[in-house]
């Protein structure tokens, strides 16, 4: 056990800190909730992407031969942690491209596909979205029904996707379709790369309970996709994407976002009163803050244990579901706790006179579901843990 870093790693950390000092856009510090707001200062974010890319820090863990940074696991960790510590914007502007498309392209793409797509993703020039979930295929993703039929050099796609985040801003979609309805459900699926401008493809934003719209429904009516845009073989779509589905983005950035949020909650408690006394002196509030801090610390340390496994070359399995469950608890509890600190004022939303912190906490309270439900509901995570770690029998 050793929480110190090698001299090389410490040198890298110094390099990251120097870079941050020189290049971090002035406007930052938003909670991760504010993806939409974050999108609004695009010129600064492009510049940030350029600067990061110049250092090789976009796609830092991808191999150098495809244009990635080839960072070691500990360097990746240091980079993410230092960035998170200062609340820097995301490490790369093409969020979905980096998270979902790149890894699949690197493993399954043709040379032509790699040449065409990886560069723009790294340079932040192209936004991607993912066409996975459907109205009847959420937790049970492999039940998807969106249909593609081969017609000459094209596939003709008909059907619907839902919960497609950022679809309104994306130029490309990585899409899962069913090409063989008679095959077992995981085997009849194919992966296509689709320009969002293709005729017949319609995007309809989904209004959310917090009033915003980050997700969309996407409808396909005789949408023609060139066979050249197929990623992997026909019927290989599940394999092509499941790696990325299982690809645990290190949760260090998430942990830091939560740590910043708890810091702000402590600050809130110090400023507000409950029954005439500072809220931070209320024993019940103190217990809840300390308990949440403990959970976030546990999440951070759990993450370090997982990273250690990776450093030792062991595969990561279902244990990442543990941190997802803890995160779900904290996402929900943090908004509720802030509300209770605010007391009567906890009901005042963003644009209200008297709203505390411009309604920040009400927004938190209304924005947890994507973080709790996305990537598998808590019930799904519990099934994963129970079955794959504890060996309990399947029930679905």
């Amino acid at each position: 056990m050793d929480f110190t870093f090698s001299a090389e790693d410490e040198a890298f950390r110094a390099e990251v800190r120097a870079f941050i000092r020189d290049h971090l856009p002035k406007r930052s510090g938003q909670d991760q909730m504010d993806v939409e707001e974050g999108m609004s200062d695009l010129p600064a974010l492009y510049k940030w992407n350029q600067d990061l890319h110049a250092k090789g820090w976009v796609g830092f863990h991808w191999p150098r031969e495809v244009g990635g940074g080839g960072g070691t696991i500990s360097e990746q960790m240091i980079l993410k942690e230092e960035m998170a510590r200062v609340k820097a914007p995301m490490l790369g502007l093409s969020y979905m491209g980096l998270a979902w498309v790149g890894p699949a392209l690197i493993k399954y793409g043709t040379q032509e596909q790699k040449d065409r797509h990886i560069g723009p993703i790294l340079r932040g020039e192209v936004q991607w979205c993912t066409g996975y979930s459907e109205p009847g295929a959420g937790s049970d993703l492999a039940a998807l029904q969106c249909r593609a039929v081969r017609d000459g050099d094209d596939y003709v796609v008909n059907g619907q996707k839902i919960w497609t985040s950022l679809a309104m801003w994306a130029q490309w979609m990585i899409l899962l379709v069913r090409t063989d309805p008679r095959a077992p459900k995981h085997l009849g699926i194919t992966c296509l790369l689709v320009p969002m401008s293709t005729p017949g493809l319609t995007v309809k934003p989904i209004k959310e309970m917090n009033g915003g719209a980050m997700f969309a429904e996407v409808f396909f009516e005789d949408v023609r996709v060139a066979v050249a845009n197929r990623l992997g073989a026909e019927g290989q779509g599940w394999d092509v994407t499941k790696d990325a589905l299982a690809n645990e983005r290190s949760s260090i950035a998430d942990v830091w976002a939560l740590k910043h949020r708890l810091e702000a909650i402590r600050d809130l408690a110090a400023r507000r009163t409950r029954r005439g006394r500072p809220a931070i002196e209320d024993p019940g509030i103190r217990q809840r803050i300390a308990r949440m801090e403990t959970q976030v610390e546990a999440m951070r340390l759990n993450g370090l244990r997982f990273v250690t496994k990776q450093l030792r070359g062991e595969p990561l399995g279902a244990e990442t579901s543990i941190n997802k469950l803890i995160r779900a608890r904290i996402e929900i509890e943090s908004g509720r706790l802030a509300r209770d600190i605010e007391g009567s004022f906890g009901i005042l939303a963003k644009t209200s006179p008297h709203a505390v912190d411009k309604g920040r906490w009400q927004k938190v309270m209304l924005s947890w579901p994507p973080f709790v439900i996305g990537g598998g509901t808590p019930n799904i995570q519990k099934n994963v843990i129970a079955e794959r770690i504890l060996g309990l029998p399947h029930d679905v």
Partner: protein
Amino acid sequence: MDFGFTPEQDALRAQARRLLDQELPLERILAWSAAPSALDRALWKKTAALGWAGLTVAEAHGGLGLGAVDLIVLLEEMGKSLCPLPLAATDLAAAALGALGDGAQQAAWLPKIARGDVVATVAIAEGSDVPTADGVAARAGARGTDVTLDGTKLFVPDGQHADLLLIAAREGAGVSLFAVPADTPGVTVRPLVVVDATKPAAEIALAGAVVPARNRLGAVGGAWPTLARLVDRQTITHAAEMVGSADAALRLAVEYAKVRRQFGSPIGRFQGVKHRCAEMLCDVESARSLVYYAAWAVDHAPDDVPSYASMAKAAASEALDTAGEECVQIHGAIGYTWECHAHLFYKRGRQSHVWLGAPDEHYERVMTVLQHG
């Protein structure tokens, strides 16, 4: 011994359900909540004609002269529909007039309230979170036979829809209550933008507003004991709405769980969903029992009111905060969309939880009563 409702009360409940289903289905509530506009005066008059606005107003003043139990029958149904009509606020104002007003004051206002011509509310709370008389900082000053009012009232229920504001203000060593028409010069009513748009609340700024001294309800500085009792009444009626909302949130989740299929089966077949629903039912029914008894106590066992009001509110807050949240979670991603009704209950739960005191404050009071009677 009978812990149930009379046939008349059952009929009142059925009437309310019919009317609310017809006039205010959740689709309409949803549309309204996107841009909460003015009170639907026509609908308010319509319900007033059925006796709702004057339900607890004495018959002599044009009301039905019914009790708190009858009132919560209505409010529970309104809670199920997340109905934004200002019934609880108006009842509270009528109760204040009934308890503190003299014959002339009652005759001046109660019949209009009962007819639905005047919407009324009581403004007690301010920015302070101290729920005692010390929390009232607004001041009343004498000017000849008039009284001037200054200060800021906050979280006034349905304040933006009220024609008549009953305003608590410090006068001398105590707190007085004044009947202030909303259009009095120096009175500015601003809607507060709240998490749950179906529960309107307002800020009332008083800048040298002048009312005649005869608008004082009760003795100079003598209103607080009555106001404290009224807050208990308000707590109970609000808890009744919450129980209705929690019940409806649970039913919404249950109905969805019966039809939504994942992995080849309705999700309501999985214990991960069904056991949570069972626990919620347990909590909803418990809160319901406490609310029913607390309402009965208002008219029949006043000594029981403080502790049962607090038990009812604490239990209802916990039941609804959970039911609203679970309603969203059980719906999965759909539950996060604007079009799904789940968030309406979620917002009601998150808001009502702290409105009129969070559970920990009420448990503290329960404990105090247990220790000191």
